[in-house]
């Protein structure tokens, strides 16, 4: 990898109260790379993800320590406003969570409205929905309720919503785990297209998904980073026996 380092995590620890959920994790993600984070449930991979845009600290009793650099600037630095950080580091959740009381259109531009509607919203609307591969399906009902969409469409709407604020990084927390195989395939295609522009960190339970979509794969176990490397190597020739056992399905 010759690309510049976009996200540089060093010795990151995260706690929920007294539970040590992420233990001393160090990972680097290159610009426009896709990092897949795999591991069994409760291994700290979602918590790791939520530390990158400082969503973790919103849970009562949760805290994090360590260094997370975004383009060389410490995300946990004293002068960083997490609100502004989250506009640079977008997030897509496990279950589609469109705003139910808003139309499809308003959902997409909700983040822009927070910034005070700076540009031509119709242009943003079409661009983001097109990028999220949803435009053709919803262009005739932009004023309708997002709840009338299928789960997969709702998830793509949430991706469009995250793209509208023009983030540099996209965090995806098991974005396809609540979807059927066809919708999952569409999300994966989308990840392929989005990596042209964005740096993506993808948490997934699905090892095939990690293998298909990512450049780098990190394997977490019990809060520790066991191994991180090029995806192909992790799946074909891992250094650690625990990684091998997990990716070959011996446990987890």
């Amino acid at each position, binding site marked *: 990898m010759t690309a510049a380092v976009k996200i540089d995590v060093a010795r990151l620890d995260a706690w929920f109260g007294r539970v040590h959920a992420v233990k001393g994790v160090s990972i680097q993600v290159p610009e426009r790379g896709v990092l897949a984070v795999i591991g069994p449930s409760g291994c700290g991979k979602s918590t790791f993800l939520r530390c990158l845009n400082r*969503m973790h600290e919103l849970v009562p009793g949760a805290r994090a320590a360590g260094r997370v650099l975004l383009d060389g600037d410490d995300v946990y630095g004293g002068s960083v406003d997490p609100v502004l950080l*989250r*506009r640079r580091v*977008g*997030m897509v*959740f496990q279950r589609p969570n469109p*705003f139910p*009381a808003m139309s499809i259109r308003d959902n997409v531009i909700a983040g822009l409205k927070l910034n005070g509607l700076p540009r031509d919203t119709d242009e943003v609307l079409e661009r983001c929905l097109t990028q999220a591969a949803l435009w053709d399906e919803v262009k005739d009902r932009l004023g309708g309720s997002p709840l009338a969409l299928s789960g997969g469409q709702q998830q793509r709407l*949430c991706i469009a919503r995250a793209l509208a*604020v023009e983030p540099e990084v996209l965090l995806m927390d098991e974005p396809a785990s609540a979807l059927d195989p066809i919708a999952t395939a569409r999300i994966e295609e989308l990840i392929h297209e989005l990596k042209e522009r964005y740096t993506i960190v993808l948490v997934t339970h699905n090892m095939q998904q990690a293998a298909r979509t990512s450049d780098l794969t990190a394997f977490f176990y019990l809060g520790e980073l066991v191994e991180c490397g090029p995806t192909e190597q992790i799946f074909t020739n891992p250094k650690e026996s625990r990684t091998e056992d997990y990716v070959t399905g011996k446990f987890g």
Partner: protein
Amino acid sequence: MSPAPLDASLGKEQAAAPSPAIRLRALNLGDRTYASALVSFGGLLLAVAGVIVVSLAHLAQPTLSATGPVHFVLGTDWNPVSGSFGALPFIYGTLVTSAVAIVLAVPVGVGLAVFLAEMSPRALRRPVSFAVETLAGIPSVVYGLWGLFVLVPILRDPVEPFLAKYLGFLPLFRGPPIGLGFLAAGVVLAIMILPTIASVSLEVLKTVPAPLKEGALALGATRWEAVRIASLPFAKAGIFGAVLLGLGRALGETMAVTMVIGNSPSIHASLFAVGYSLPSVIANEFAEATTKLHTGALAGLGLVLLGLAVALNGLARLLVGRTQRKLA
């Protein structure tokens, strides 16, 4: 489309008689007993409501036909001795005091609920909730007493002169600062309905799914913006319900209002003026209502109050329904 044979076979299957097991279940004795018990409980409730309305109407009938229902509602003169019954000043008093109460209590109550649900440190939540519940438990006569001996003097000086000085260009804040009157009643009502609005709103806000709020925060919303774009729209209908509950209590509140409103049938634009409310008249006059006409008039006031509550409820529901249907 070609799978016509498939459709045909499906149709045949559906046409076949249901198996005995399915038919038996429809006759399940426990279910039927349960269902009919529920229906009769529900019916009983409706019947009681119906009996109350019908008997009130029967009681009010002599006065309504003597005065004429329109004149009864729109007339402004109330004199039981001369047999003149016009309820408008009381309707006005009830509406104005309830409006003042809603205007004061909704922002505070909903704000308190939002604070407790979204912003407050956990340690603060319990004591504040406890204080709110305590407010809800105070009997209304105690509110009235407090209003009369504590609130009214404070309103007389300095609150009303202050309002008159700076907001006196509005007709609402003109006239002599007496203390007693619409404003005093409205403030007491506001305090009384605050716990209802705050606690019901809080329960509703607690049901907002965390992922929805996180969705807003992940877009770079501040906590307040997340409340505005995610929590409040989700909780809107429920908060509206909380306000309706509060309004219902304000409309019907008798004792506390009677003690501070001044009990004088008059219609004034100023909130400083004394007035009268529908429940207060009924409470003050029921003991001396000896003639059929007078009792009939009080029953008529009861009907008007009931109608007012139903009408406002219906209106509010209509409003909520419309905002919700806009997206469907």
